[in-house]
Each structure stands twice: as C-alpha cells, then as structure tokens.
C-alpha cells in the first residue's frame, strides 16, 4: 500500500499542495499508526499531516475522494493486488475471460481487473485531457480487449442463427467497457493531470504578452494576479527594522555577552521599526493604452489589496483618486466605474500632473514611492516635465512601469524621454512575469 500513498502524494503535489519528503514520511507513519481500514479517519489524518492551510485542506479533501474512490476496490483486494504486482502480466485474464467477466456482471471482479489493467497501462502518468482516450484504449487492451474484438468479428461474420444476437451482446459489452475505461481515465486525469495542466496554462499565460491576451486569458490572469499580490503582500508585510545607533539595548547586550563574563564586546543597539511602504500609484486609463487598461487596473486593484496604505489615482486628461472605488467594488465593477468616470479620453499627462500638484501634492513626501502605470503618450501636449521633476524631488523614488518597449520610447507623441531623467527606474512591463519582478523591486526598495 506504500505505493498508493506515494501516488496520492504525487497527485497532491501536482495540484500545488507542496508536500516535502519529511511530510511524506510522516504520512507513512501516520498511516502505520491508524491503518487503511477507516476511510474517513484516514482522510482526517492525512489532511492533518499533509495539508498546511485551509485552502490546501480543501484541495486535499477533493483529491482524497477522487483518488481513493477508485482504490476502494484495490483496498478490498489489497492482499492479492500487492502480492500479484510483480507478475501482473502473468495473472492477466486470458482474452476469453474478459467476455465472461463482463457477462458475469460481477462488479467487484470487473473493477479489480480494470484497476490492474489501469496500473499496467501506467495511468498515473496521465498529464493532459487529450490523453484520456489513449489511456482508455490502453486499459481495454490490457484487459484483453483484442480477444473481445476478435470474438465480435467472428460473430459478425458468422452465419448461424445465434450469431447476430451474440454480436449485439458483444457490441453492448464493448460499449460499456469503453465507457468504464474512459471514466477511469478521466478520473485519473482529475487526480494527476488537472493540477499540472492548470500550472502549464498559468505559466503560459504569465509569459504571454499582455496586449495579446484574450478574454479567456484575462480570467486566468485575475487568479494569477491575485496570487502574485498575495505573495508580494506576505513577503513585504513584515515590519522593517532599522538599527538605531546611539541607544544601547542593555538587556540584550548583557545577555549576548554573558559568555564573555559580562564584558560588552558585542554591543546591541535598540532597533526602531520602519514604516511600511507608502505608495502612490497613478494609472493611465486613456485610449492609447486601451489594450493594457484592464491589466493596469488589475494591477492597481491587487496592489490596493496587498499594500494597506496605497493612494491610487487614475487619469486620462483629468486626474482623480480612485481609492474608494477600488475598496468598495469587486474588480469588474471597479474597472467599469473607473473607465466610465475617467477613461478613454485623449491623454493629457500635463493636465494630470497639474491636477496632482494642485490637489494632492501633500501626499507625496520623502517616504513615498510613486508608481506610474502608463505609456507616456501625451498627444503632443505639454508633458509638464517640470512638475514631474518636482514630484521626483519630493518623493523617495519614482517608478514608471511602461507597457511599451524601449525601442518605442520617444517615438511619435511619446514624452518618455522628457520624464526618463527623473525616474528612479523605468521598466518595460510586457508580461505578467515582468510585472511581478517590477512590483517586487518596488516593494523591496524599502528594505
């Protein structure tokens, strides 16, 4: 039964439940302690040992039901199944038996045979949904499907009176068998393949260019961005400390030097907690970035979730704070609202900067990081780089995430070269991966 457990753990891993070798050993020990006998007890115990969060527990419970629903029959025949594993080929029922077996209607015998065939077909290696049909066929073959086929052919060609009825029977049997094998293969795919397929698609989406994403990808993207936002939030939520020289931490110094007879060789200073990142995010929602708008807003939305005190603004020609909209609405609604109120007009960076200057300048101080999401295409209007310079002088850093590549900066109405000297960093963000890296850098800048 060790094998059953290992395969189950593999299935868990493919569904993004990270199970270390140590945990796998613990699971083995837990199973040794409680045994395979009680299904729900086993489920509780493995959930306890293998899953490390509520979310993982849900994945675990779902997979457990899927996985152990088919090994139920295995468990019943545990002794014979494990004993025969080595000589599986030899113990395979001869072709004639398959028809008899199916005709007998002995459920447990049929499923045992199918389990064995599935194992021999290497079903646990299934990865993609397109492989279901192939594996179903392999299962039938392993069960001796060729014999069935042979007999069916003979019956079809036969001239005797009973042949036609027999052929019909055999066709029915074959259909049932095919369906069962398919079901079995699909279940294996749910257990072993679904997670990896998901992972594969996610990886693919993360690498895909943002302007090439279609609606279907967008749905996936939402999940991915939420995941990234969570990861970033966890990574950057810890309080930062700053050494504050000049104030001695007497207790800790004494302790650290206790081994040195209390002579303070190693001096420990009191530490001061540093503030969490303070971020002002400004997002361009004008027509020129129409392809990216959804995505930029999604990022803004996730950032607002991840960083507690973020100030978010959006503009096309007038600039407005959108914190409330982001906080009060689900993403779809928030996006619709922002675009309705502000979006898709002709861009005017100059106007946006002067709005920011007049109404919100006080929120930018030397602890603030300003993130601009936009392409810097300002319809040949005055880019007001002087205002931008003022902000840059006030702020801790200015970071520009640009959906356009470097080669396009400065072409046409792009005012990027005017802003570039005042940016701490200007990043080309074309894929989700770029984006994660860029945001990570932004947040790390506080370290």
């Amino acid at each position, binding site marked *: 039964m060790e094998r059953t457990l290992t395969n189950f753990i593999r299935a868990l891993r493919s569904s993004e439940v990270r199970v270390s070798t140590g945990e796998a050993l613990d699971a083995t020990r837990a199973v040794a302690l409680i045994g395979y006998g009680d299904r729900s007890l086993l489920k509780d115990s493995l959930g*306890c040992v293998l899953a490390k969060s509520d979310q993982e527990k849900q994945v675990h419970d779902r997979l457990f039901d899927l996985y152990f629903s088919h090994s139920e029959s295995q468990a019943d025949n545990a002794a014979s199944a494990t004993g025969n594993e080595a000589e599986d080929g030899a113990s395979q029922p001869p072709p004639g038996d398959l028809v008899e077996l199916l005709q007998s209607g002995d459920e447990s015998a049929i499923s045992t045979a199918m389990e064995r065939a599935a194992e021999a077909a290497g079903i646990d290696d299934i990865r993609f949904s397109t492989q279901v049909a192939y594996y179903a066929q392999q299962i039938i073959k392993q069960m001796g499907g060729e014999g069935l086929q042979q007999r069916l052919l003979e019956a079809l060609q036969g001239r005797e009176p009973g042949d036609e009825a027999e052929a019909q029977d055999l066709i029915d049997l074959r259909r049932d068998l095919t369906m069962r094998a398919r079901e079995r293969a699909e279940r294996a795919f749910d257990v072993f393949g679904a997670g990896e397929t998901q992972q594969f698609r996610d990886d693919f989406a993360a690498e895909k260019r943002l302007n090439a994403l279609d609606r279907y990808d967008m749905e996936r993207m939402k999940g991915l961005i939420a995941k990234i936002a969570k990861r970033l939030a966890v990574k950057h939520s*810890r309080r930062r400390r700053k050494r504050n020289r000049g104030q001695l931490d007497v207790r800790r110094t004494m302790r650290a030097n*206790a081994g040195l007879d209390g002579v303070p060789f190693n001096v420990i200073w009191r530490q001061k907690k540093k503030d969490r990142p303070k971020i002002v995010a400004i997002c361009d929602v004008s027509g020129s970035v129409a392809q990216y708008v959804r995505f930029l807003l999604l990022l803004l939305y996730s950032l607002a979730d991840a960083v507690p005190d973020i100030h978010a603004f959006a503009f096309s020609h007038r600039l407005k704070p959108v914190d409330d909209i982001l906080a009060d609405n689900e993403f779809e609604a928030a996006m619709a609202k922002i675009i309705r109120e502000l979006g898709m007009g002709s861009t005017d960076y100059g106007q946006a900067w002067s709005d920011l200057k007049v109404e919100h300048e006080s929120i930018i101080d030397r602890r603030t990081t300003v993130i601009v999401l936009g392409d810097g295409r300002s319809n040949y209007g005055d880019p007001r780089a002087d205002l931008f310079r003022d902000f840059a002088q006030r702020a801790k850093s200015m970071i520009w995430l640009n959906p356009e590549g470097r080669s396009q900066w400065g072409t046409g109405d792009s005012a990027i070269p005017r802003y570039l000297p005042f940016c701490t960093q200007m990043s080309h963000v074309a894929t989700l991966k770029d984006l994660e890296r860029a945001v990570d850098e932004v947040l790390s800048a506080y370290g």
Partner: protein
Amino acid sequence: MAKDISTGYEPLSSIDAVTAGLATVGYISTREISTAVFLAHGLRKPILIEGPAGVGKTDLAQSLAKWLSLPVLRLQCYEGLDEGKALYEWKYGKQLLYTQILKEKLNELIGSADNLSTSLGKLASFEDLFFSEQFLESRPLLTAMQQPAGSVLLIDEIDKSDEEFEAFLLEVLSDYQVTVPEIGTIRANVPPLVILTSNNVRELGDALKRRCLHLHIGFPDAARERMIVQARVPDVSDILLKQLVSFVQGVREADVKKRPSISETVDWARTLLLMHTTALDEEFVRTTLNVLLKHESDIAAVSKEVPRLVREATGPDKAGRTASGYPELG
C-alpha cells in the same frame, strides 16, 4: 508504527479514547480534533491550530494536560519576544553576588599560587561554576524540556511573534532540544506535546508549518455548542440552553465584524444564569447583547434583528411545542 519512535508516553489506544478522555475534563472534542491529538501523540509532532479567536484553541492544550496529568507550560508570543524570555536567561544578579563574595576570598584561593598560569587555572575552575545550571533561569521552553514525565507546551499566538523567533523555534520543534552555548545541548528525555496556536495575523513560514500537524478549529455546530455550554455551565436549564445556542448560531450568520465565539456563548450563558433567566425574551437579550458582541456597530446591527432571532430561537421546535409550553426538564 515504526519501532524507532519512542514517544515516552503510553500510546493512546484510539481516537475515541481521546474524545472520551477530553470529555472527562470538560472539553468537547470533534473527530478532527481528536484525530490531530492522536496523531500528535503517536508521531511526536507539534499541532498547529488555526481558527478564529475563542473557539477553544488554547483550551485544548489546557484540557489535554489536565487529562494526561502533565504540567502545562505556556509561552505567550508577542512582538519582540526573544530567546531570553522564551528559553533561558542567566541569573545575572546572583552571579554578581557570588562574584562579590568570592572576591574577598580571592587572596586565600590564589594566594598559594606563585605564578600567573597556576592562578589562572584556579580561576578557570570557578568560571565553569558560574555558567552552570545553578545560575540558569529556565523559561517555558527549557522548563518544558526538563520535565521528567513530559509536559504540554503551549506556544500561544505564534503569529504575533517575529520571524526570527519562528526560525529559532525550529530546532526546538523538530529535535526537542535546545542549545545553551555555555553549557551545551539540552535534550528532552520525554518530548513535550507541543501545541501552537495562531490567529493568522501574519502568514507563518513554510518551514514551521512543515514541522507541524495542521488543525483548523472553526465555529461549532449547534449540537456541539450545546454540549460545550452544558459542560462549562452545568446549571443552565435545557430549555434556555437550546434557546441561547440557537440565538448565537443565528447571530453568527448575521453580517457582523466579530462573530461571537464559544467563549462568548459561555459567558452569555453565565450572565443569563446569574440573572435568573429561564427563557429568552427580547428586552433581556437587548440589555445583555454586549456580552456577546464586542463592537458598537455589531450591537447596533444585531439589535435590529433581535425580534426575529429571538422568535426563531424560542419558536416552536420540531415537536410543535412552544417555548412557554415546554416542560421544565431540569
């Protein structure tokens, strides 16, 4: 069970034995909780309990200790907790005092030595004396390791501690040993049963999670909550018990900031008992709502719902009997 694992305890016989055992000390367990305890005991692994405040996470540790007659050592975590407060500290005062006493005897002791190296050698023997267990102030973690018959170590609200401390705990949790540089490694003869609780203030590190069994305790269903209240407040009458539990269950479904947990239900039951209430009525619920809800806005929100909730809680039960016509069961 593998032979090389010695837990140092009598093995627990079954999951049901755990449930029954905990029940004897007044802790109403569920199957999940008992399974986790059984495994923790058998595998010698810590349990990490997550869940909302006041659902009996800390209480599980206390009850477990009571049932197994083991001492319970509690380490309350907070920001800035360091090993000095969790593990051990030298008794500086005592060391200083002894040094002072020794100083006067110093001449006598090294007087006979005629050169530097002999006197140094004599002094060195005292140094070891000063950094011995005699001068060691043991804190919860070390105390737990030193218990001869084992113990229950409760590390409460681990999510409030710093990440450095979490990393420091890893040695303690996986090997059940602690290292004091001046003395050496102290290993627990009988490893303590470790229970960590977390309210999810921050995400815990993977390394820590990996070393623990994970258990989530949520709000109980009505039947279990009734049993818990019954166990904690045995004097409460059946009819009131039924009503107050179904009222609390109703409040939990409402849109409130902080949902009342078991401890609040128990407090409320005590309140009702103290005021000699026999059945819920609107007026009374309104005046004692502050026991159940801890936010002004929650109280305001639920106040509006009180008539409905009380009606539901005291409404006719399945047998069609009304609250007022319900015979007193004692």
